[in-house]
């Protein structure tokens, strides 16, 4: 498979053309897919609408997962925020509650946008919908931010992996946090170089995270990791906008993630044979769940 461009190459092109990361990715994709930027924007708008619907649905707190383990937590966090009690602050709580909401809809067989995967689908909506509100960004810019996120995701997919089975949770929630941080910088008015720093800082903190789902289900700890990854991305945006730089460039962080993913044992890559999945509580859940369903 031909390897796609690196982040460094994308930044060079964006600099040369005087484009934001999102607008560059839009232009490259229009060429690659032989279509217009407008058609791509419209297609991305459909994704954005599904993300918004998933937030609304998740906040109702009515949907339960297949096993009954998750559901309703987004609503709890949102209620606390609305009551003005959130200690971590309004923006962070709103971001995390939305990430939980979308991840809960996913666990309950509802409709979501994989971003980059279903297991990590809450991170981008959580971060971007909230930052768009905070910065007053219109949908036009929000769509460009989603293309910026996609561009970073494409680099990760071609240079490393976005699959938990291949790279652990760092490849799913880590990639999502990286993409969300870079896209968040675009919404906040930062430049492509700052976006790459934000992506690098977000991904670095999630390196080594294993995929150890209880009973093999996309529920525990996946749903709450979406909230944590979103919070982490939000912080990376703030750091990058403050002028903080990542000492290791994003391409090299992605390389490191790939190395770590290869070194990670299979028991910690989505097989439910290690980590949280082997705790006594998890084993009990597994037995109960399978037992319930076998008639």
């Amino acid at each position: 498979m031909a390897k796609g461009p690196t982040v460094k190459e994308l930044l060079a092109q964006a600099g040369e053309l005087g484009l934001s990361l999102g607008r560059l990715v839009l232009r490259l994709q229009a060429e690659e897919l032989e279509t217009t930027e407008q058609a791509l924007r419209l297609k991305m708008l459909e994704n954005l609408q599904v993300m918004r619907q998933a937030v609304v649905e998740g906040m109702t707190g009515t949907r339960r997962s297949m096993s009954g383990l998750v559901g309703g937590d987004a609503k709890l966090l949102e209620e606390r925020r609305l009551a003005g009690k959130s200690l971590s602050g309004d923006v962070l709580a709103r971001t995390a509650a939305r990430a939980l909401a979308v991840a809960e809809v996913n666990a309950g067989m509802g409709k979501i946008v994989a971003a980059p995967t279903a297991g990590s689908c809450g991170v981008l909506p959580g971060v971007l919908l909230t930052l768009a509100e905070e910065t007053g960004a219109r949908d036009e810019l929000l769509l460009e931010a989603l293309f910026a996120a996609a561009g970073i995701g494409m680099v990760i997919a071609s240079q490393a992996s976005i699959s938990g089975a291949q790279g652990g949770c760092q490849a799913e929630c880590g990639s999502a946090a990286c993409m969300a941080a870079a896209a968040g910088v675009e919404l906040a008015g930062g430049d492509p170089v700052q976006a790459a720093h934000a992506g690098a800082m977000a991904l670095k903190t999630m390196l080594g995270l294993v995929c150890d789902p209880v009973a093999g289900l996309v529920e525990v700890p996946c749903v709450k990791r979406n909230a944590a990854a979103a919070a982490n991305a939000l912080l990376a945006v703030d750091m990058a906008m403050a002028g903080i730089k990542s000492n290791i460039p994003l391409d090299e962080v992605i390389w490191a993630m790939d190395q770590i993913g290869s070194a990670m044992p299979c028991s910690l890559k989505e097989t439910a044979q290690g980590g949280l999945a082997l705790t006594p509580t998890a084993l009990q859940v597994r037995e109960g769940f399978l037992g319930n369903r076998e008639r």
Partner: protein
Amino acid sequence: MPVSAFDIIGPVMIGPSSSHTAGAVRLGLMARTILNQEPMEAIIHLHGSFAETYRGHGTNLALVAGLLGMGTDDERIPRALDLARERNMQVEFVTADLGDVHPNSAMLELKGREGLSVRVMGSSVGGGRILVTRIDDFPVELGGDYHTLIVVHQDQPGVVAQMTTLLAAAQVNIAQMRLSRQKKGAEALTILETDQPVEGAALDLIGRLRAVSRALAVKPMA
């Protein structure tokens, strides 16, 4: 394999798992497309991780949803087994060892309403993407990313040349091509992945070549 922005932000899908749910829908849908009619009976062999965790991911629902013609974003997926019953589609799940294949694999043995039958084996290879690896006894590699022409024909000299000549005349460019056969001179299967759709006269003429018993055009999967 092409990776586009919409492979990363997308697909829109019913959860919970891109590999165990969305990929499974696509595998079912591709099997139905290859059968080229509505399935009436399906025996679904689940391998590896599909066999172990299918209940929790709704993999069984997803495969049947695909057999019913649904896409990955169809909100009826959670009710697929009931819908199959309503349409008198008989579905049986068995766990199986399909050999040295991807952990997320299944083999679908289908009988259609108009008498055709086919066995389709494939894997969900991540992010909702699939790879069909076997059709009946023919090893294939079919991802559903391209316009695809599936041709069953006699293994004899000149058949490929005849097909590609017709494609060239129709201005169809071939991206990938693979021919496999049971044994020399017996039945063979050729899969052509193309940049343009094969339709109209070109498809018709290929289907009517003397050595060709069946030609099926498949659109790229959404």
